[in-house]
């Protein structure tokens, strides 16, 4: 099926909660895969993106690997979407932004209670942490934002069906109203 819409998804500094919420579209998934094919995604285990129509990014940018992954998505996806509070604002991981990175690393690897063999991990295989956790739109251009922690299954459904059916996506008030 060459003309299926190709979708890639990933989680950067996130908890996969947005992905779990996406799966909550339940049986509608069957409808979705009629018209959609998944490229790189935790759902497929494909490691790298090829050309895609839509990229869904969960989580903010906390380290150098996140930057590379995000750029790979931007280069390959026509439409790139920030999914959930962490992608949009940095979210929970960004709580470390108030503490200098040096203190965070010292606490975790040198001075913390119960640390054995204290040392800062250093290996070229390991991504380095950025000084702060950044929202993804501060690193690459983002086309759409899906608010929520996580966005509900209905948000995913409404947004994707709008796009797939060629409408400008819009979320009714009920879907972005949280209290």
């Amino acid at each position, binding site marked *: 099926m060459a003309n299926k819409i190709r979708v890639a998804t990933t989680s950067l500094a996130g908890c996969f909660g947005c992905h779990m919420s996406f799966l909550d579209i339940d049986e509608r998934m069957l409808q979705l895969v009629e018209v959609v094919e998944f490229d790189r995604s935790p759902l497929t285990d494909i490691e790298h993106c090829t050309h895609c129509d839509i990229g869904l990014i969960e989580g903010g940018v906390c380290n*150098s690997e996140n930057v590379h992954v995000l750029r790979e998505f931007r280069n390959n996806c026509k439409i790139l979407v920030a999914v959930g509070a962490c992608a949009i604002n940095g979210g929970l991981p960004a709580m470390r932004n108030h503490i*200098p*990175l040096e203190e965070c*690393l010292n606490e975790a690897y040198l001075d913390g209670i119960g640390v054995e063999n204290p040392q800062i991990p250093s290996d*070229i295989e390991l991504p380095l*942490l*950025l000084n*702060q956790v950044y929202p993804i739109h*501060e690193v690459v*251009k983002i086309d759409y934002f899906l608010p929520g922690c996580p966005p509900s299954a209905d948000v995913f459904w409404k947004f994707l069906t709008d796009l797939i059916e060629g409408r400008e996506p819009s979320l009714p008030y009920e879907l972005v109203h949280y209290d």
Partner: protein
Amino acid sequence: MRQFVQGIVENNHQATHLLQILRQIQSRFHYIPEEAIEQLSGLLNIPRTQIISVIEFYSFFHLTRRGRYELLISDSITDHMLGKKDLLGYLENKLAVAVGEVRPDGVVSLDNTSCTGMCDQGPAGLVNGYALTHLDHSSIDKIAELINQQKPLSEWPSELFQVDDNIHKSGLLLNQQLEQGAALKAVLTRGIKETLTEIDKSGLRGRGGAGFKTAMKWQFCSEEQQTERYVVCNADEGEPGTFKDRVLLNTYADQVFEGMTVCAAIIGAKQGFLYLRGEYLHLHDKLQNILEQRRRNGLLGTNILDAGWNFDIEICLGAGAYICGEESALIESLEGKAGIPRNRPPYPVTQGYLGKPTVVNNVETFLAAASIAVNGGDWFASIGTEKSKGTKILSISGDCARPGIYEYPFGVTVQTILHDCGADDVLGVQVGGPSGSFISDQEFERKLAFEDLATGGSFIIFNTSRNILDMVHNFTHFFAHESCGFCTPCRVGTSLLQKQMDKIVEGHGSAGDVVALEELCQLVKNYSHCGLGQTAANPILTTLERYPDLYQNRLKEISYEPGFDLDGALETARRMANRDDAGAHLAQIEVNEHE
């Protein structure tokens, strides 16, 4: 310390005096110590958290110790145009202290502060609250020496504190200095009701910028059911580029107080306040003396002019918060609280100070009202335009030969003003301060009047050697600094505007960034709680409208670039992991990474 605090509170035992109490503690100890907060909390019966929130709200209060000489340098665009940046660097070197820091010996601290209202005689600053003008290398040498010798301020040469009026053009109001008591006697002769009629006939509108009809405001207040009423004079002249109120209070204070007293007679108030911005501390004692003199002369206090009127005026000093120029924030501040604007309505005329009917007017409005009480409404209304009667006193600064105070009939063109003050090669004018609008050289035929360009009086001239984006950058930072933090669109929005503006000015902008900036402007403008947020985007919007290319030319022809130094953000981790391999670096812009 306990005794000191006890001493102040004995004279000012009400919670409404919190600002004045904190000012004294700050000035004595150079910060507000924790013990003082605890003690005040007990004495005034207000929670310590509320006191802390007030301390954190105002720029001139600090929870950590500042220098015994606290030096603040005005950050107005006009100071920058006069070479402020270079001077600040010179000061840092001379005093061996960085901006924002206290020198380790505790003698001196240095920082920036919002416009101090000395735009016609900058670069300007404050030392322990007192205004410094005409700063240059030689005066800084002198100041550094005095500080290093720890000479008390009273022994500093007076020329450092010289503040000039610089009145270059007088009109209806400034030409005629009233004799002390003349307006009150006129009211007595003409009658209170009749005086209000004259003010109505004069067409006088509020001079702070909004232009509400003065007679109508006074009438509404006088018709309220509650009989405890107040008069407040707003001398919290914080709009960068405005300094006329400073001059009026320096030379025409009697007449301003007289205007307040006339208002009190009309609305039936017994108490008035002059809310004087903290930056004008140098005027405080002089004004107190004038009030004292008026009391002695039977023009203030009990039984004024033996007519049975009772009215007195108290001076309250602000503590560095632009938002307190907004009338409801000003009232909050008078009540000893953080200056957060109230919901309006109810307006102050129905529920103002302590919830009582209150008239809040600008210094210039009271000055004009006193003149009208003497000369009658027709005298005033014969000048100006259809909807803007009388004259407007302007504060002119920036690129011109003769910066200072100019009084013009309403309806004067920008061109005429530029000619009079000696401005050549003009690129444009910021009318009404950062919250007003930028006028390009194609619009100099426009008129200053409520019908066209409404203004509180700030008039900053830019010649063709100036970069408009530098100005917008300065104004945008000003609003982000002065946002009171109460509502999200303004608190977060002004910071985002600042960030986005920085990104474009520093050359990190790309295709979509100006559109994103414009969207953000609309959001901040349309959703903010008060005038600050509603006008904070004006510098961007008014220049974007006139000079779109200026913004577009700063953009890179790539789809996107981060607004921060991406590789720099890895620096700490790189150092701690002791790495410098290729994988430990990031390119700022991606050079097509193929895996």
